[in-house]
Structures are given as structure tokens and as C-alpha cells.
């Protein structure tokens, strides 16, 4: 198969959609639970930490610009060790994909399709993802280009309508319990959208221009600012307590909006943004894990793996979290050290080994 080719703008757009996807409804509640009314400070710290991690990813991709993350693992560490490390990365992508499916299904069965069976929604959505993955990366990013203006436009509309309900007293008192809650919130917000961007190291060799690092950075910055705005809006309009209680505070924010007693109940706008962005997040994750699996096993055409992996993803998404409480508990405790290990420590080690190897070759 021919390697896909995408442009830098398309890459930025898909990074933005990935960053917003699935975090848009979850992160305000998680951040508020961790650091209460200082959630916005934690969001800012998390975004700056995320941008630092992006610099690390860029440095790693500069070592072997033409190879994906898993291929450069094999080049740096040799065949056996490289394949073992690749499997760890693939399992991270795949489990992340299953949690994304779970998030989507959980949201739909709580708020919109209350009586539908879970399996039907998952099967429909995963079939769509398999279809998109089989069509290839170029089709996915072009589709992203079409939907991007809609996401941004609806987002601005939503934020505009929520301005009249803003109460700045909700933010007080600032830093009541010191720095510790902010650290909790910052690590959570780093691990939920920003560290997951390591998946783009699987795609970055497909970009035609040389400005891969710049577009990854820009995309993360824009997506992070959007997430920050949403956290702000939830805190300012709903207040701390309601943001913590709701599992999807942004959706409730959409319900609350009443613009001049005329524009009301615009929660479907929020649901549209969520559905579009989560689709791209899931497609990118599924594409990366299928491609990675194909590379590790030495399969000629990655498309033959889409159906079997899709079925496994379906089963995994049904069993991954037994209930809501487990999911919240897991996301705020074990998930953070897990993603820090996979997305910071392992890439740092890879980078160090690659640098040492290059120096040894020169001498």
C-alpha cells in the first residue's frame, strides 16, 4: 500500500479535534473534583505541562523523522526489545480507544438514548470507525477538515450564549487549600488529553511539510485553550458543587442556557460537538493501534486487521469499566501514573538511548 500523505494544516486540525474529543464533557468535572474552584488554575498548569510534553514528543520524532514511533522503537532498541516496547504502546492506544467507546456509550445511554441497549450503540459506532479506518488516513483528515468549522462555530455560539449567566463570585476564594489540590488537578488534566497525543507520533511521518513539530504544538495549544474555556464556563455558570456532582457538566451547561428567554436548551449543540470530536479521537486511536499491530506482526495490508480488532474493541469497551464509580476512581488514581510512565518515561528513555547511540556511532 502507498504511504498516506497529509498537509500540515490538516494535521493541526486533527490534533485539535483529538484534544477536544471526549475531554470536553469529562474534564470540567474531574478537574473540579480534584481542585475545586481552582480548577482553572489547574487547567492552565496542565496545559503548560502538556506543551512541555509536546516538546519531548517533537524531539523524539526528530530523531527518525521518516519513521513512526513503533518503527523507531525497533531501530533504536533492536528487534526483540523494540517489539516488546511496541506492544506496550499498542496496548495503551487500544485500551484508551476502549475507554473512549465506553465514554461515548455512557453519555448516550445517560442523556439521549436512555432505553437503547448498550451493544447496539457500540456496534453502530465501531462499524463507522472500522469503515473510516479502512478508507485510510487521508480520508479521515479530509473529513476532519469538513467538520472542523462546524465544531469551532458551534463552540463559539455555545460560549457566547453562556456569557449572560456568568457569576464571577463562583471563583472565590482563590487557592484556598494551597498548592496541593492544583497539583492533583494539573496531573489529571495532563494525563487526560495532553499525554494521549503521543498517538500522533504514529501519524507524523505521513506529513509532507517539515513543520510537523510546529503544527502539533499549535494544535495542542488551540485544543487546550478550548478545554480551558469550557472549564471556565462550567465553573462560572454552574458553580463548583454542581460541576463536581454532574458527570457531564458541559452538557448541563448547555441545558441551563437561557439567552433572553429565547435561545434555550441548546444542549444538542454540545452533543453534536462531542459526537464529532469523539469520532475523530476514536478513529485516530483505532487507526494507530491497527497500524501498529500490522507493523509489529509484519502484515502486508493493515486493513485485514480492522474487523478482528474492531470486534475485540467492542468486547473490551463492554467490560472495561464495570460501573461509573470504577471509571471515576480509576481515571483519578491509577490512570495518571500509568499514562505518565507510558507517555513521559518511556519516550525519555528512547530519546536518551537514541542520542547515546548516535554519539557512539560518531566516535
Amino acid at each position, binding site marked *: 500500500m502507498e504511504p498516506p500523505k497529509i498537509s500540515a494544516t490538516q494535521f493541526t486540525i486533527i490534533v485539535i479535534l483529538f484534544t477536544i474529543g471526549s475531554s470536553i464533557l469529562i474534564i470540567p468535572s474531574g478537574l473540579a473534583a480534584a481542585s475545586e474552584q481552582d480548577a482553572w488554575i489547574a487547567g492552565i498548569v496542565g496545559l503548560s505541562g502538556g506543551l512541555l510534553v509536546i516538546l519531548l514528543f517533537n524531539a523524539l520524532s526528530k530523531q527518525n523523522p521518516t519513521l513512526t514511533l513503533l518503527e523507531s522503537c525497533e531501530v533504536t532498541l533492536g528487534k526483540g526489545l523494540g517489539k516488546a516496547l511496541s506492544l506496550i504502546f499498542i*496496548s495503551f492506544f487500544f*485500551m484508551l480507544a476502549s475507554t473512549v467507546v465506553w465514554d461515548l456509550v455512557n453519555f448516550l445511554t445517560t442523556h439521549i438514548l436512555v432505553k437503547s441497549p448498550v451493544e447496539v450503540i457500540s456496534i453502530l459506532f465501531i462499524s463507522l470507525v472500522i469503515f473510516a479506518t479502512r478508507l485510510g488516513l487521508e480520508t479521515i483528515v479530509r473529513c476532519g477538515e469538513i467538520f472542523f468549522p462546524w465544531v469551532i462555530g458551534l463552540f463559539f455560539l455555545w460560549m457566547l450564549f453562556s456569557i449572560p449567566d456568568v457569576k464571577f463570585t463562583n471563583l472565590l476564594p482563590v487557592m484556598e487549600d494551597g498548592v496541593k489540590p492544583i*497539583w*492533583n488537578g494539573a*496531573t*489529571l488534566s495532563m494525563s487526560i488529553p495532553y499525554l494521549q497525543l503521543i498517538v500522533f507520533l504514529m501519524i507524523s511521518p505521513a506529513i509532507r511539510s517539515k513543520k510537523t513539530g510546529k503544527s502539533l504544538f499549535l494544535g495542542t495549544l488551540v485544543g487546550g485553550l478550548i478545554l480551558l474555556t469550557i472549564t471556565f464556563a462550567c465553573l462560572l455558570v454552574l458553580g463548583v458543587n454542581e460541576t463536581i456532582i454532574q458527570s457531564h457538566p458541559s452538557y448541563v451547561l448547555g441545558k441551563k442556557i437561557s439567552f433572553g428567554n429565547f435561545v434555550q436548551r441548546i444542549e444538542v449543540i454540545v452533543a453534536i460537538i462531542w459526537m464529532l470530536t469523539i469520532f475523530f479521537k476514536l478513529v485516530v486511536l483505532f487507526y494507530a493501534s491497527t497500524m501498529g499491530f500490522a507493523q509489529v*506482526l*509484519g*502484515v*502486508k*495490508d493493515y*486493513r*485485514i*486487521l480492522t*474487523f*478482528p*480488532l474492531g*470486534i*475485540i474493541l*467492542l*468486547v*473490551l469497551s*463492554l*467490560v*472495561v*469499566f*464495570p460501573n461509573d464509580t470504577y471509571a471515576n476512581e*480509576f481515571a483519578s*488514581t*491509577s*490512570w*495518571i*501514573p*500509568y499514562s*505518565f*510512565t507510558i507517555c513521559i518515561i518511556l519516550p525519555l528513555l528512547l530519546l536518551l538511548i537514541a542520542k547515546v547511540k548516535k554519539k557512539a556511532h560518531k566516535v
Partner: protein
Amino acid sequence: MWQIIGLCVAIVAIVLFERPLLKNHKKDRWIFSITLVIAFNLSMAQILGYSLPTPFDVITILFKPAQFLFQ
């Protein structure tokens, strides 16, 4: 019952659909069959109501010692 029939029909349909891609590659055929058998077994277990373990239990055990850094 109808879930099992549906699953079998889906598996047969997938095999028929993928046949042109698998024609000339022996290794691909093996990998495809093995992954599809794993997928079939997992979904069969899910349909028959066995409680499959979640992989996150393992991660919780592995990363419990490091949690204090982020609390």
C-alpha cells in the same frame, strides 16, 4: 440464542468480505484467522455471560505504589 446466530453470521460475512485481500499472502491469512478466532471467543464469552476481567485491574495493581505522587 439470536445473539449467537448473529455473531456467527457476522463472522462468516467478514471472512467472505476479506477474501480478496487475503488471496496471495499466506502469513496475512494466518494472522487474520488467529485474531478473528480470538475475537470470536471473546464475544462468545461475553454473550454467554461469563464475567471477563477488565485489564484495568492489572494496571491498578501495578501502579498502586506510584499513586502517592499524584495525590
